[in-house]
C-alpha cells in the first residue's frame, strides 16, 4: 500500500518536473532566439558571419580590453587610455548581451596594423586566419567588418558642393573610396567630385562615417549582410573567364513552360488583378 503510494508520488513529481522543464525550455529558447536577432551591428575585424559569431563568442571581453589598452590609444598627455572602439553589449543595447561591437560615429575602428583585438580571442569567434595575407602576416586591409554606403540625396558632394571629407578620412585613400569627376550641367562650368565606395576594398572601419560633415552622416557603414545584394549563380559574366569558374559545376536543367491557351487580346483587355 505505502509502496505503491510512494511510487505514484514519484511518478507525479517526475512528470511535474519534466513538464516544468519543458515549459521553461520553450520560454528560454524563444527568448534566446529573439535576443540574437540583431542584424544591424558592426563586429570587430575577423569576426565570423553573424550567426556563427553569436555561437562562438564566449563574451570574455579580451578583445575590447586589448582595443582600449593598445599603445596607440594611450593619451600621451595624461598617460591614460582613451575610450576604445570596441564596446561590450550591455543590457538595453538590444544586442546579444556581452558581445563586442562598435559604433563608427562614437569611435570608429582605426585599423591598427598589428590588430590587437584579434589574436587575443580565445574562442575563435574572431578568426585570425581570415586576416592573414599571402605572406602569412596579419593584414587589417583584409577585414570585412561592413560596407560604407553613400546616400546621395543627402551627400553635399552630389549637390555640387565641394567636399571630400570621407575620401580624405579613408585609411585606404583613393582605393576604398574613389572620386568620380562629372560635369555639373546646372552651372555649366563646375565639376562634381563624387565619392564612390569600392566594395572589394572597403573594410567597414567607419572613419568616413565619423568624418562626414552632414548633420546625420550621408555615408555610413552597414553590415555586409544588410548592405550587399546577390546576383545569384544563374547570372554569369560571360566576358569574365574567372566568373565562369564560379558556376563550373552547374548542370543544365531543361524546363518546359506550358503555353497559355488564352488569346493575346484577352490578356491586353483584361482587368488588372492584384
Amino acid at each position, binding site marked *: 500500500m505505502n509502496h505503491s503510494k510512494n511510487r505514484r508520488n514519484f511518478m507525479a513529481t517526475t512528470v511535474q518536473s519534466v513538464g516544468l522543464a519543458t515549459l*521553461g525550455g520553450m520560454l528560454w529558447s524563444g527568448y534566446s532566439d529573439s535576443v540574437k536577432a540583431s542584424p544591424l551591428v558592426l563586429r570587430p575585424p575577423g569576426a565570423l558571419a553573424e550567426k556563427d559569431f553569436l555561437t562562438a563568442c*564566449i563574451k*570574455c571581453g579580451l578583445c575590447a*580590453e586589448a582595443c582600449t589598452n593598445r599603445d596607440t590609444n594611450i593619451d600621451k598627455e595624461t598617460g591614460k587610455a582613451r575610450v576604445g572602439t570596441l564596446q561590450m553589449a*550591455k543590457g538595453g543595447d538590444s544586442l546579444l548581451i556581452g558581445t563586442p561591437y562598435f559604433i563608427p560615429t562614437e569611435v570608429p575602428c582605426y585599423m591598427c596594423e598589428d590588430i590587437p583585438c584579434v589574436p587575443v580571442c*580565445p*574562442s575563435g569567434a574572431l578568426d585570425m586566419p581570415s586576416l592573414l595575407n599571402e605572406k602569412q602576416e596579419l593584414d587589417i586591409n583584409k577585414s570585412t567588418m561592413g560596407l560604407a554606403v553613400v546616400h546621395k540625396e543627402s551627400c553635399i558632394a552630389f549637390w555640387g558642393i565641394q567636399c571630400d571629407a570621407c575620401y580624405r578620412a579613408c585609411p585606404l585613400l583613393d582605393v576604398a573610396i574613389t572620386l568620380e569627376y562629372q560635369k555639373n550641367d546646372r552651372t555649366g562650368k563646375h565639376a562634381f567630385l563624387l565619392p564612390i565606395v569600392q566594395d572589394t576594398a572597403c573594410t567597414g572601419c567607419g572613419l568616413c562615417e565619423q568624418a562626414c560633415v552632414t548633420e546625420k552622416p550621408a555615408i555610413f557603414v552597414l553590415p555586409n549582410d544588410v548592405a550587399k545584394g546577390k546576383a545569384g549563380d544563374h547570372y554569369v559574366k560571360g566576358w569574365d573567364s574567372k566568373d565562369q569558374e564560379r558556376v563550373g559545376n552547374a548542370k543544365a536543367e531543361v524546363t518546359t513552360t506550358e503555353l497559355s491557351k488564352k488569346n493575346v487580346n484577352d490578356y491586353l483587355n483584361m482587368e488588372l488583378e492584384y
Partner: protein
Amino acid sequence: MKNMKYLLLRRSVQLGILFLYFSANAYGWHILEGTFGTSLLFGTIPLADPYTTVQVLATGFILGTDVLLGALIITMFYFVVGGRAFCSWVCPINMVTDLANWLRRKLNLDKEEVNYRFLKRSARYWIMVVGIIVSALVGVAAFEVFSPITIMQRGIVFGFGMGFAVVLAIFLFDLFGVKNGWCGHLCPLGAAYSIIGSQSIIRVEHDHEACTNCMDCKVVCPENQVLHMINKSSISVTDGECTNCGRCVDVCNDDALKFSIRNFTKNK
C-alpha cells in the same frame, strides 16, 4: 571580530578578484584579464567557465584550445578545493544574495515565509540540463543570454547599462520571494559547481562532542540541508551543494565546526 574571520576573508577575495578584472580594462594590468567566460591569468594561463564551455560545445562550435584548456584548469581547481568555492569566494552575485538573506533575517521575513513547494533546490540541476539543450537548439550559449553573474561582472568592468536591473531582480527575488532563491534553487552554474566539487578535499568537519545544539550554523547556512549531521555525528560535510563559505565555522561558539581535509575513511 572573531566570528567574522571567513566572512571578511571571503569579501576581500571577492572584491580583490573583481578589482583585478576591473584593472585589466581600466589600467591595462595583465594580472587577471577578461571575464569569467574566459580569463587570462598573468597574461598567459587561460581560465574558462566549464558550464559556459559546455554550452558553446553543445551548439556544435569547436572552441579554441585556450578555452578548453582554461575550462579544464578551472574544473581541476574546484575539483580539489571545491564544494562550491566559486560561488562563495568569487561570484559577485554572492554579495547581492548574502545581503538579501541578511536583510530577510533582520526584517523577520523568514517567519512569514510562503512555502514555494514547486520550487525545490533540485530545480537548478534541471535548469542546468535544460540550458545545455536550449544552447544546442538555438545555437547560442543559453545561460549567458541573461546570466546575472557575468552581467554583474561585465557591468563592473565595462559599465552596467540596463544590466543592473537583472542584479536588482535577483536581490528582490531573494529578499521578498524565495529564501536563497537564486543561489540555492535556480543558478545552473552553482549546480555545475556542486557536481564538480562534490568529491573535493577541503571540507567543513563537525565535532559532535563539542556541539551544544544552538543551531546558529543552520540559521546562517545558505544550503542548510547539507548540515544534517549537526549534533548527530562527527563527520564532514560531504554534500557538493556546500559552498565552503565558512560562515558556519565563523558563527560556531563551540568550536564544533572547522575546515579540514576530507577524511575519506570515516565517511564511507
